[in-house]
């Protein structure tokens, strides 16, 4: 028994300080991203979420250049980016496609410059990978309170706006007519999204932050039709892929090709893809079975005209 356990959890997993920090911080980030992400998906703001990650890259690399903690670079630039989006509007993405593309391109270009200047000066090429693809194992334990504070802030905003966010996702006109301050709700939500994205920029990397925001939420929406359950599922999936990713990354130090270990972010993002595909498959199966049942019920009804044979499907 313990031999199997030792095979799964390679020696030293639970004793390692970087692993413990990664489990705590990674878990908090997964939780926040999943909760915020459900609303990102139902509000159709996935692209805005991705843009915030791209702008975060500029901030993170800038912070690295001036020897500040990248987290603050991510946070400041993501929030500035959210402000800019609100100013220029994210409602008509087609009309803004080109402007957005050019601005994001410029942002990443500046990030490339910052990273080049920063890394050639100190010859720490690892920083480029850390900014773009994250690394949960290099987060210092002293940062935990900051992560906790930002997580609570984002979660509090979503909890406060829960009902107005749902209502305006159904129809902004209805929300407006009911007296919901739609614009203020939108701005506050963008702020929560900016915070969530900056947090995941540190753990999973600026480029991959969208995956953690959108992936678990999108999979959850395939599995349930209730808003509260969708959030619960997204959190479970987010935590599972993050913690499993950490475990696999730790174990991979003992894997080929060399004893260098594979990046955590790779495992997390790969697991998200697998979970999404499984959820999609499950929901398709469920629909096919429901369709077959409805068909059988209608056949039974028309064939023998016995109303008692048709269960109340409500599928019409």
């Amino acid at each position: 028994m313990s031999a199997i356990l030792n095979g799964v959890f390679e020696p030293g997993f639970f004793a390692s300080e970087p692993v413990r920090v990664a489990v705590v911080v990674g878990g908090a980030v997964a939780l926040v991203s999943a909760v915020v992400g459900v609303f990102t998906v139902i509000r159709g703001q996935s692209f805005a979420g991705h843009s915030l990650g791209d702008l975060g890259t500029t901030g993170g690399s800038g912070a690295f250049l001036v020897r500040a903690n990248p987290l603050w670079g991510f946070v400041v630039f993501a929030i500035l980016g959210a402000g800019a989006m609100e100013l220029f509007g994210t409602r008509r993405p087609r009309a803004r496609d080109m402007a957005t593309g050019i601005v994001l391109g410029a942002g990443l270009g500046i990030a490339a410059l910052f990273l080049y200047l920063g890394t050639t000066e100190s010859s720490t090429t690892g920083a480029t990978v850390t900014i773009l693809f994250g690394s949960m194992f290099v987060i210092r334990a002293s940062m935990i309170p900051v992560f906790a504070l930002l997580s609570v802030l984002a979660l509090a905003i979503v909890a406060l706006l829960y009902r107005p966010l749902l209502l305006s996702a159904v129809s902004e006109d209805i929300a407006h007519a009911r007296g919901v301050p739609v614009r203020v709700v939108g701005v506050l939500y963008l702020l929560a999204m900016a915070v969530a994205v900056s947090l995941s920029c540190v753990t999973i990397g600026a480029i991959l932050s969208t995956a953690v925001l959108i992936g678990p939420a999108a999979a959850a929406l395939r599995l349930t039709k209730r808003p509260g359950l969708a959030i619960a599922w997204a959190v479970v999936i987010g935590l599972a892929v993050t913690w499993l990713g950490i475990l696999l990354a730790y174990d991979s130090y003992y894997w080929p090709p060399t004893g260098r270990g594979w990046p955590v972010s790779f495992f997390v993002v790969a697991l998200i893809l697998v979970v999404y595909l499984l959820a999609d498959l499950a929901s398709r199966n469920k629909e096919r079975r429901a369709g077959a049942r409805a068909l059988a019920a209608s056949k039974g009804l028309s064939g023998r005209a016995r109303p008692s044979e048709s269960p109340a499907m409500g599928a019409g």
Partner: protein
Amino acid sequence: MNEPFPPGAGRGEILSLDGVSLWLSGREILHDVGFRLHAGELTGLIGSNGAGKTTIFRVILGLETPSAGSVLFAGHPRARRNRSIGYVPQSLSLDPDMPLRARDLVALGLDGDRFGIPFPTRSRRQLVDEMLEAVDAQGFAESRVGKLSGGELQRTLIAHALIAKPRLLLLDEPLANLDIRSEQEVVGLLGRIAKEQQIAVLISAHEMNPLLPVMDRVVYVASGRAASGSTEEVVREDVLSALYGHHVDVLHVHGRILVVAGKDEVHHAEPESAHTVAPRGLG
């Protein structure tokens, strides 16, 4: 217009518009629009697309401020935040993945504008069930809103609006994109709601015939102007010709009313017909 009773005081008057004009970016969208809505009455807001129906709704909802004229709700200037007005917008398209059942959407009508997370209580659930029953929606209460048919979504949205116990219910083109059977169901439902719950119902439509069986009054809109009264008072050749600014015929055919533009109009329309451009190849 002389008003025989003080505003809001008489005969269940819920809403009154008087001399409402609206200018938007240099164009006059509404001109001297005035009508009244009463409790227990169903009023049709009839006119072609672009006549100003949706703008009139936006004025009533307080989303547009009139350049001139007054909008009184139960005798008082309309408050910005008003739970007494229920609103069902024109054809919503919802994502099939939206994690919301018909029952959840109805519940949002109760407190969707409130902050914080709702706590499910027995009385809340009971109220939602009653509302679902009132619009005959029990059969699809557990279905995702994105997968409802047009008629089912319309009934769900009506329940969503009704659960807040409004005194005025506004529906923007609720019959658009409905098949004949759902159309009749929705019309019957709305007529019943107006009578049973004694609320004023205002329905916009570009086609008045489906509403004739239940419509107590009509507000006919053409190019930003409006005429209101009973169907017999308004849907007449002289009234509508004055409203349109050119001659129109009103024909009664087997209990249906057809409003036909005069000969001039027909002539104007002819060059626009598709005959001049012959389709070429299969593209």
